[in-house]
């Protein structure tokens, strides 16, 4: 699904979704009625042995910063990779992942997490806590050193 002019020989597909953790603090959640603050942690890596991408996404929901946690969800997305041998490596032997693929993985992970959260929250006091649309190309700074 990721084949582009930029990456003609690399392709991947979502092979597995693992819900690693979920919690909802119902007493606190029942008090929440206004806006929500979503803290999002996103980590993406490549597993060279199994030739796949692994994206971990954790979301914590509060009404405001430093307020009690209302809910959290941790999801792992596993993408099978076709054309692994076409990934280039840097001088240290670490694979270089094209930015367009990073972007696609982040976007897929965030949007799938939005759906999973909605499915979990439907009919609960957090029914309206919908993860906002996020432009994955714009949102953050990659903390992994080059």
């Amino acid at each position, binding site marked *: 699904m990721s084949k582009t002019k930029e990456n003609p020989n690399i392709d991947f597909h979502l092979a597995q979704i693992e819900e690693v953790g979920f919690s909802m603090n119902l007493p606190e959640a029942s008090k929440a009625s*206004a*806006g*929500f*603050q*979503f*803290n*999002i*942690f*996103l*980590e*993406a*890596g*490549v*597993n*060279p*042995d199994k030739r796949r991408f*692994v994206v971990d996404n954790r979301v914590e929901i509060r009404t*405001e*910063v430093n307020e009690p946690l209302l809910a959290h969800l941790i999801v792992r997305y596993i993408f099978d990779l076709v054309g692994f041998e076409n990934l280039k490596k840097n001088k240290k*032997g*670490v*694979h270089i*992942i094209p930015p367009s693929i*990073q972007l696609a*993985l*982040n976007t897929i992970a965030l949007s799938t997490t939005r759906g999973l959260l909605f499915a979990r929250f439907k009919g609960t006091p957090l029914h*309206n*806590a*919908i*993860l*906002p*649309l*996020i*432009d994955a190309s*714009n*949102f*953050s*700074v*990659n*903390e*992994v050193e080059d």
Partner: protein
Amino acid sequence: MNKEHQKEEQTSVLDAILERISLSDQRKTEDRMLLAAKIDDLIKGRGLTKTGFASLVGQRPSVISKWLSGTHNFTQDTLTEISLALDVPLMELFKKKEPELFFKAEFSVGSGVFMSHSHLRPLGGLLEPALGITHYWHDPNSPALAVTGILSVPQHIIPDWVVLSSMSWAGNNAVYYPKKKDPTLERHSHTAEEDNYAIKV
């Protein structure tokens, strides 16, 4: 027959073949491939060629090619010889590669209280360094220009918060200090605007 049908047929044939292979055989093949890939990586990591490695272990290059093909069933003694030649403990050959992390980020997104009140219009934003941005909203149908909603967005006064839409914001939790000059940061600079959502990116 079109390409889609051909592909479907190939997939079903492949599935049928895979079903006939026992789990044990699949695992054996996978482990052989992984071991060969590991040895290949170690050889390359030491800057050796196949010929160079062959002379180290006293074998012909064709034997090395067979070893690295992923089909060879190594004996314990051969693996010991390989680990000695590569100067690694034997167990290193079986160690799985750590996933290579290529992206890590932590950020926050806020969703507003006015999700279900789309008729409200922004009246302007007030930049308050201690609090963040306070947004004022009003109902255009109301006769007076009264403020009908206030939304304070904390942690907004950091360089890399961006407005995603009129209802949501995103940014990193901590102020980001790049080690080298990052041109994208300039794009993230913000200014208070009278009649906007207070942040301009």
